[in-house]
């Protein structure tokens, strides 16, 4: 059942349209991540759900109630800001209790609910401190605590981890996933970091230029990106993209020639539609689809640098036509800079047409 329904919403700032007609639905308890490059409208969309930005057109409803133009206070949503937005002159306790104090919740209940939130977030010893006396991670917990105690219908997170260092970010990511499991609330999370999106989301909404590019589960987006943008944005290391030309197309598959390839390759379907012979296409290879293959090489690449991660090695290389690619090698590869790697691809690669749409059927 749909809990949050965003229906054809747009947002106009003066003459600039930032959100250009977006429709998204989320189920109760679902963790939905909005991801996209900066300026894609993801934060604006989140603020529209919160009521901090007016919705120009379209409608937003939560739990069956149309809240498109409702006051933020009447929406029963809580938001965790990128800057934490803690009240600097109040103790941690007062910060968490603020909403309940404003809404005249009885003192005993405030105390109990703050204690409960503090327990979940393990910030019990910090309740008397001021935000200034806390580390970044602790401030983040307090901000989440302030959201939890209100028992909101929806949690909104606006890039909550971007002010933390890498290690803490990973740790807090796990914490947020745990909190989601523990309280089972509907969460909408905005990030530009596709790793956060992949690891946290039940479903990911990829946005670009105020439009939805694709909505799907992380695996869905990884395996079946709708277009070149999603393919390039989701997945780390990135998908390798090789430009080529269709030599022939039939029900059995395509025959594609790439400047990088030593000879034209046949790529099997099924395809949503067949490209015309002679048209430009882009071949997309996930890193794990590329393998070092001395026996039957399809293309080769010159090694630029290798990154030894201990358990595995990342090989940064450049193909003959100048495309940079990354090959993960499980074993401790004994390649050096300047070596030429013989490569082939294992699974059927993605094929994108000249407009960037993925031709492969999921």
């Amino acid at each position: 059942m749909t809990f949050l329904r965003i229906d054809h919403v747009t947002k106009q700032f003066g003459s600039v349209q930032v959100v250009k007609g977006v429709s998204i639905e989320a189920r109760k308890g679902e963790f939905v991540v909005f991801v996209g490059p900066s300026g894609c409208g993801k934060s604006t969309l989140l603020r529209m759900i919160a009521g901090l930005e007016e919705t120009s057109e379209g409608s937003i409803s939560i739990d069956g109630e149309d809240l498109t133009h409702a006051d933020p206070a009447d929406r029963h949503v809580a938001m965790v800001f990128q800057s934490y937005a803690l009240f600097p002159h109040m103790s941690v306790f007062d910060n968490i209790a603020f909403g309940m104090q404003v809404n005249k919740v009885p003192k005993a209940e405030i105390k109990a609910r703050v204690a409960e939130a503090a327990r979940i977030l393990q910030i019990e010893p910090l309740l008397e401190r001021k935000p200034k006396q806390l580390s970044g991670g602790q401030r983040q917990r307090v901000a989440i605590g302030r959201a939890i105690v209100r028992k909101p219908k929806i949690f909104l997170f606006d890039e909550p981890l971007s002010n933390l260092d890498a290690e803490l970010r990973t740790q807090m990511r796990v914490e947020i996933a745990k909190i989601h499991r523990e309280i089972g609330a509907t969460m909408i999370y905005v990030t530009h970091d596709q790793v956060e999106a992949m690891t946290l989301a039940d479903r990911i909404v990829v946005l670009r230029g105020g439009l939805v590019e694709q909505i799907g589960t992380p695996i869905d987006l990884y395996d079946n990106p709708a277009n070149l943008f999603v393919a390039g944005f989701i997945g780390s290391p990135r998908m390798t993209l090789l430009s080529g030309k269709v030599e022939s197309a039939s029900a059995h598959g395509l025959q594609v020639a790439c400047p990088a390839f030593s000879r034209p390759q046949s790529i099997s379907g099924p395809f949503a539609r067949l490209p015309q012979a002679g048209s430009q296409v882009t071949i997309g290879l996930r890193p794990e689809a590329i393998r070092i293959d001395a026996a039957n090489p399809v293309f080769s690449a010159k090694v630029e640098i290798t990154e030894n991660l201990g358990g595995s090695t990342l090989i940064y290389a450049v193909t003959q036509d100048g495309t940079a690619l990354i090959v993960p090698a499980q074993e401790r590869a004994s390649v050096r800079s300047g070596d030429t790697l013989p490569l082939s691809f294992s699974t059927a690669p993605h094929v994108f047409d000249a407009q960037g749409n993925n031709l492969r059927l999921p």
Partner: protein
Amino acid sequence: MPGRARNVSLRQRRRKEALIGYLFVAPAFVGFLIFYLLPTVRAVGISLTDWNLMRAPKFVGLGNYATLLSDGNFWHSAKVTLAYVLYNIPLQTVLGLLLAVLSDRLARAVWLRATIIAPYLISNVVAALVWMMMLDPILGLVNAFLTFFGVSPQGFLASPDQAMVSVAAISTWRHTGLTALLFYAGLQAIPGYLYEAARLEGAGEWTMFRRITLPLLRPVLAFVVVTSLIGSFQVFDVVAVATAGGPSNSTRVILWYIYENAFKFNRMGYASAISVVLFATLILVTLLQMRVLRADQSDLD
């Protein structure tokens, strides 16, 4: 011993750094010394003498201070000044805060702030002259206005009961804009997301003002109250132009009384003694306020 050598060079570097620091402060300090500190010390010296500018000053010890304690005119002027401060400061601060918050939340237009600050750009003397004409009991615009609405004409600056209130009103009119502008600047330092967070928590405008704006504005509030309080205790030019201490001494504020003693009665020693007492009182009041308002600490990062 390399450790010791390093210590020495570190100490030398510190000393050099301190010297450069003093050099930077020097120009301002020289001005302060010549125009503030020396005259103050000199005033304290003169206050211990009997001096009418004609003859050489005669040392009288604390005699002037003893006279002051039993001088009814001095205590009257202190009372009148305090009344002026009490009319002036609360009204000016509250009005300034109101204007600042309203222009911050409703209209951030530059012309609006320019209008608000405009009275401050007029000199006190000009403001006093303009208001003297407007408040004239017979020919004044204000009484014409009041009569139009059926209110009987008032004496204003000519009435012993209303003169001090009228002077305070002129000062409030002139200074509220500056107070508002200072508060407005203080408000810009409070990040907008705090208000967004509060709104999501269900806080209304009044709650946000009371629980966010006011506490975070505290250092600015302290600055504004301290400076305007000191300024109010030293009110002089509006009084000098508009009432000259009258009618019947109802606006004889401390500075006017000092001026009379010094330049009308040629009692330099006595005038200096009153100045020193005012100076000491203001320092005490300022220290107290700074302590109460924790002016040196901001909650903002």
